[in-house]
Structures are given as C-alpha cells and as structure tokens.
C-alpha cells in the first residue's frame, strides 16, 4: 500500500486480500420480538451488519463472556456496537452494560441503551456506567443514523490519535518506514496498536 493512497481495502498481516464493505457489526439486544424486528431493519437500512438476541444472557453468551469460549474468537463476528433495551427480564440492559464494561476484552465496545421510559436518574446511571448514548423508544431512523455517526467519528478520532502517537514514536526511533504518513490519516492499518481490540478498526477511516 503506497503512502497517501486512500484506504479502501483491508490487507491483513496474513496476506489475504479481502475487500470489505465498511460495515459496523451491531449486536442488538431486546426481549420484544417486535422491537428486534424494527431495530434490525433500522440498522440494516443504515448499512450495518446486525445480530439480534433476546436477552442479556444470550448477549453475553454470544460475546463469549459467559465462561465459554463461544464465538468471540471468530473474526467476522467481531462486534463494533451493542444496542440494548433497558427493561428486560433477567439481566437488565444496565446489568449487561456493567458486565461489558467490566470485561477487559469488551469494555471498549460502545454500548447504547434504549428505553421507552424517559427517567432521568436511569439515563444518568447508564451514562455514568459508560453507556455511549441513551435512545428513547420508539427508536427512529434518525436516532440510528446519529448513533452510527457517533461511533464512526469516535473510532476515527481514536485512529487519528493512534496515528499521531505512532508517528512520533517512529520519528523518535528514526525508522525509515513507508507507513509513517504525515498527511494521510487513513493509512492507520500499518500502525500497531496495543489498544486495538477491533481488528477492523483500520476500515473505519475509509468510512469517513
């Protein structure tokens, strides 16, 4: 990949050339079958890949946080965003949020809470626990578009910061590397990141 080339394709270290469409994979959690259908469509129409589950427990199972290795190791099931209903039997959305934020593997995945009830203390509690945002139901297309923008711009910010900090590192070490781009933030794929848990983060910059 030449310096300055706008990144459209992911070239992972393994050498496989994969053309990936810039898609967020969203895990949507809701005990209501009607709401699952609606949120799934809202997300799909916003060009997101969607997995829906009916409970917090199933969400943890899907992520592999329930003790089993589960599916969390499979690359194409990497979750970029979790959208969850608040009021669910068993684990509430808040409980799920806490578990995710307590997990070293998943705490950086943004979590958005949905609720039909506009209860300020509840909203504050969720935001305090690390929720990215709070959506009032019924969820509308504008809400989903806004969230998607928020997530993408957060990741772009993160990549940009990594790009700058790595650029400084490379300059300090005086390494002649073709990946140290001074003008193109999109070449972040070459930058190693200890912070990076999402392997597709290098795709994000091409989404802007």
């Amino acid at each position, binding site marked *: 990949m030449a310096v300055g080339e706008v990144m459209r394709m992911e070239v992972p270290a393994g050498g496989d050339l994969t053309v990936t469409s810039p898609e967020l994979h969203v895990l949507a959690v809701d*005990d*209501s*079958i*009607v*709401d699952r*259908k*609606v949120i799934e*469509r*809202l997300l799909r*129409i916003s060009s997101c890949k969607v997995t829906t589950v009916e409970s917090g427990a199933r969400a943890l199972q899907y992520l592999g946080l329930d003790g089993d290795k589960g599916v969390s190791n499979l690359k194409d099931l990497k979750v970029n965003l979790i959208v969850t209903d608040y*009021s669910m*039997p068993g684990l509430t959305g808040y409980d799920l949020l806490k578990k995710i934020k307590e997990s070293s593997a998943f705490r950086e995945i943004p979590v958005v809470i949905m609720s*039909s009830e506009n209860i300020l203390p509840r909203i504050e509690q969720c935001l305090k626990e690390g929720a990215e945002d709070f959506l009032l*139901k*019924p969820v*509308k*297309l504008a809400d989903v578009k806004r969230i998607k923008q928020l997530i993408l711009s957060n990741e772009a910010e993160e990549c940009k910061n990594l790009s700058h900090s790595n650029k400084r590192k490379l300059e300090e070490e005086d390494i002649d590397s073709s990946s140290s781009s001074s003008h193109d933030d999109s070449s972040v794929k070459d930058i190693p990141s200890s912070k990076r848990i999402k392997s597709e983060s290098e795709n994000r910059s091409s989404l802007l």
Partner: protein
Amino acid sequence: MELVQMQKNLQDYTKSLFLEGILDSQFLQLQQLQDESNPDFVSQVVSLFFQDSDRILNDLSLSLDQQVVDFKKVDPHVHQLKGSSSSIGAQRVKNACVVFRSFCEQQNVEGCHRCLQQVKQEYYLVKNRLETLFKLEQQIVASGGMIPAMELGF
C-alpha cells in the same frame, strides 16, 4: 375499480387512521423502512405485533382471573404491550396500556379489569383497521400498481 381510485382510497383510509388517533407517526417511520428490497416489512412487523399481543392479552386475562392477582406478573405484560404497540404506532393501544399500568401500580383489581377490556377494544380496532389497510394495498399491487407514499399534508 381503477387503479388511481384504489390508490386514492388507500390514502384516504390511511389518513383517517391518523386523524382518529389510531395510528401515530411511528407507523410512518415503519413505512419509510419499507422498500423494493423489503416490500413486506410493515405487514411483517404488524403480524409479529398481532401474534405477540394475542399471547400477552391471553396471559393478562389469565393473570387477572386468579383468586389473588399477582401484580408483579400483570405489570410486565402491560409494559410489554405498551412497548410493542408504541413501536408500531398503535397509539390508542399504547395509551390504554399507560392507564392500565397506573391501575396496576395502585393494585386496583377492578380498575385493571376495566383497563384490560379497554386495551382489548383498542387492540381489536387497530387490528381490524390494519388488516383492511393491508387488503387495500394487496389489491393495488395485484392490479400492477404501486402503493403511494403517505403524504403528511394533513
């Protein structure tokens, strides 16, 4: 009947549902999510709503018929129905659920029974109207026509 007339009938019918408060803007949101790639989205969601609601109303009837009513069981059902009706824009069902919940909170059995009747009434009304709406749509599609987009001029 001419296609244009069918389309006009559908628009007038849909408009009347909004004017009567049976449907609210959330229903329009759902219609916006329907396109050539998902031409039956709205009727699919509404079908799910009907199935889900039938189940919930049945559970509610059973719960309220108990010797000792367990409001901890009743309220979550009403909450669920409130949520799903809100998600499809069934405004009057949703509003009836809001009232129902306040009677649950008061643990008022008599009040809850009345509310259940009210909710059922509103539910059968919206069910009937939506089934008619989908029939009108089907007739248009069967005649080779397109379903007109809802205008918000009213």
